[in-house]
């Protein structure tokens, strides 16, 4: 068909790849035993003796497969570079940097047994909760410092970095919004975008959640959020292109709903080209954390565990902070004095009240969005 990539072709290719790949599984060595330690069953660093033992085992594997880690997302570029610098013997393979959480799990299922399968995942909460049978439990050294609400108790997945749903805007193009309803005004005509479709992307889902709690609704009922975007659409203010640093730079999307750390990231990236301010609306804030997990079929189980230990080290946690995200160990690090206080104090002010939807609330909201969203913004 003469229209670039037709869907049928994509499906066909995927099916063929899946077929040929399952044919040659077993070729990869998934046992990953380093010395006497079976890394694939290690649930904390003591299985390797100490961190040096884990490092030795990981170096022996010599490779780490990560997936869906965009380099401009919460400072992941710097995190990956620091890991590569610290462990030069481990080659990092970055697959599908713009993939979704759901695609990470699909890749793990399709590539199970291959040495190209992802070792570790970085997941939104909804996917993490529904995919626990794909994870190997592991508790990092700083486990006890991680707030209970942000980790799965056996260590199947652990919150790592997060933030508040915020609005980024170009102060040269629009007046500063003080509250959500300001965005319905005439000054914002054809200017407001969401990072993705809420029926698909976690960040966009959170944007509707934030609009709901700011618009007299609650996380139990996203209808108020859907109503807000429906009004925004009727006012002609809603722009339905997917915002990227490119659309922000060109002025196509001067107002963007996104996580505060991603909005801060856009500002850093476009320094000198565009001014970019970030506001978390006062009142109730909508927070979300991304989670780390290890693939139970990880082809490099020791490297996967070393990656986890690395991500929860002070260095990496401070890198999240440098990217504008709130590291999960922030409180403990502030108490221990290991946090970068300049960066910590520079984060947008935390709203009076913070909500994070539970699994049930997320599911109900997703169902509601599936029914209502397409029609609400048409």
């Amino acid at each position, binding site marked *: *068909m*003469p*229209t*670039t*990539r*037709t*869907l*049928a072709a*994509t*499906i*066909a*290719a995927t*099916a*063929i790849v899946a077929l040929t790949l399952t044919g040659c599984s077993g070729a990869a060595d998934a046992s990953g035993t380093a010395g006497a330690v079976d890394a694939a069953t290690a649930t904390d660093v003591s299985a390797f003796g100490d961190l040096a033992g884990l490092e030795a085992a990981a170096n022996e594997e010599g490779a780490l497969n990560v997936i869906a880690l965009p380099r401009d997302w919460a400072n992941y570029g710097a995190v990956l570079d620091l890991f590569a610098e610290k462990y030069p013997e481990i080659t990092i393979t970055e697959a599908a940097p713009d*993939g*979704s*959480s*759901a*695609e990470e799990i*699909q890749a793990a299922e399709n590539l199970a047994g291959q040495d190209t399968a992802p070792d570790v995942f970085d997941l*939104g909460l*909804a*996917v993490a909760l*529904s995919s626990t049978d794909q994870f190997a439990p592991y508790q990092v050294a700083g486990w006890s410092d991680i707030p209970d609400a942000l980790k799965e108790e056996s260590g199947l997945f652990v919150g790592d970095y997060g933030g508040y749903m915020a609005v980024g805007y170009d102060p040269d193009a629009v007046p500063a919004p003080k509250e959500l309803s300001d965005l319905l005004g005439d000054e914002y*005509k*054809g*200017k407001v975008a*969401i990072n*993705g*479709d*809420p*029926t*698909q*992307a*976690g960040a966009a*889902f959170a944007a509707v959640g934030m609009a709901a709690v700011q618009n007299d609704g609650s996380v139990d009922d996203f209808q108020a959020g859907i109503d807000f975007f429906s009004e925004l*659409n009727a006012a*002609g*203010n*809603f*722009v*339905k*292109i*997917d915002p990227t640093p490119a*659309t922000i730079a*060109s*002025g*196509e999307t001067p107002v963007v709903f996104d996580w505060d750390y991603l909005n801060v990231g856009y500002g850093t990236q476009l320094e000198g080209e565009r001014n970019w301010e970030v506001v978390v609306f006062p009142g109730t804030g909508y927070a979300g954390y991304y989670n780390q997990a290890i693939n139970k079929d990880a082809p490099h189980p020791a490297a996967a565990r070393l990656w986890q230990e690395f991500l929860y080290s002070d260095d990496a946690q401070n890198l999240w902070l440098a990217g504008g995200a709130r590291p999960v160990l922030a409180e403990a690090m502030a108490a221990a004095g290991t946090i970068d206080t300049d960066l910590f104090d520079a984060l947008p002010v935390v709203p009076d009240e913070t909500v994070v939807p539970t699994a049930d609330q*997320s599911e109900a909201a*997703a*169902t509601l*969005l*599936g*029914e209502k*969203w*397409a*029609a609400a*913004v*048409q």
Partner: protein
Amino acid sequence: MLLFLALPTLIAVGTGFVGADGGFTLDTVAALGDPVVLAAFGSSIWLSALTAVIGAIVGALVCYALIGAPADGALRSTIDSLSSVLAQFGGVMLAFAFVATIGIQGMITVLLRDSFGIDIYADGVWLYELPGLVLPYIYFQVPLMVITFMPALVSLKTTWAEANATLGGTARSYWLRIALPVLAPSFLGSLLLLFANAFSSYATAAALTSQGSQIVPLQIRSALTSETMLGRENLAGALALGMILVMAVVMTGYSVLQSRAARWQR
């Protein structure tokens, strides 16, 4: 070849009948009756039909204008090769071209706004919505029409026009009684091909519109990759089944019309 084309189709269709637990179920296929899915099929069909009709008419007019030019002349060969290239010029490139020209900060938008005071987005930014897809789609539909319809126009024999003139016919009677009936199957066939082309098109829409998954291919993407609505991978199979049904009807029509048209092209 059969394996290459048929097997993925069968797998795609097959997943539509598999439930989340791996057993046989009709539930996912029943989900095709969901209002959101029906609306997506509706949008897909009207978008494809509209751009196919416009593309076919404009393309046919271009062809008609071209038969006056010498067959091996520079004009014909330039348009021929241009059409072959532009018919493939869909997807992200095309979407970007439109954002750069008639996006909110696009060259033409800004020119119209600043120099002529015309704001094409006075009622909201339609480029990133369903109606905004019409223009980009026509952009690859017209060249495709030129490629597929040109051979039919060329096969109109000059002897027919002469016979018509000899028998005292007018230009009107030539077109009404000879040319149009001969060309009709080719024209309708090309129209169906254009419809199928737009119906299965995905990347242009994916790059331009990010809200609501208004057409079926975007619904399939949503079902496969969503990180907020989980466990709907099998709905993608059911949606593919729906698309294949529509395509089967269209392509059957196309082959029937083609066999009629082929009679006059020998």
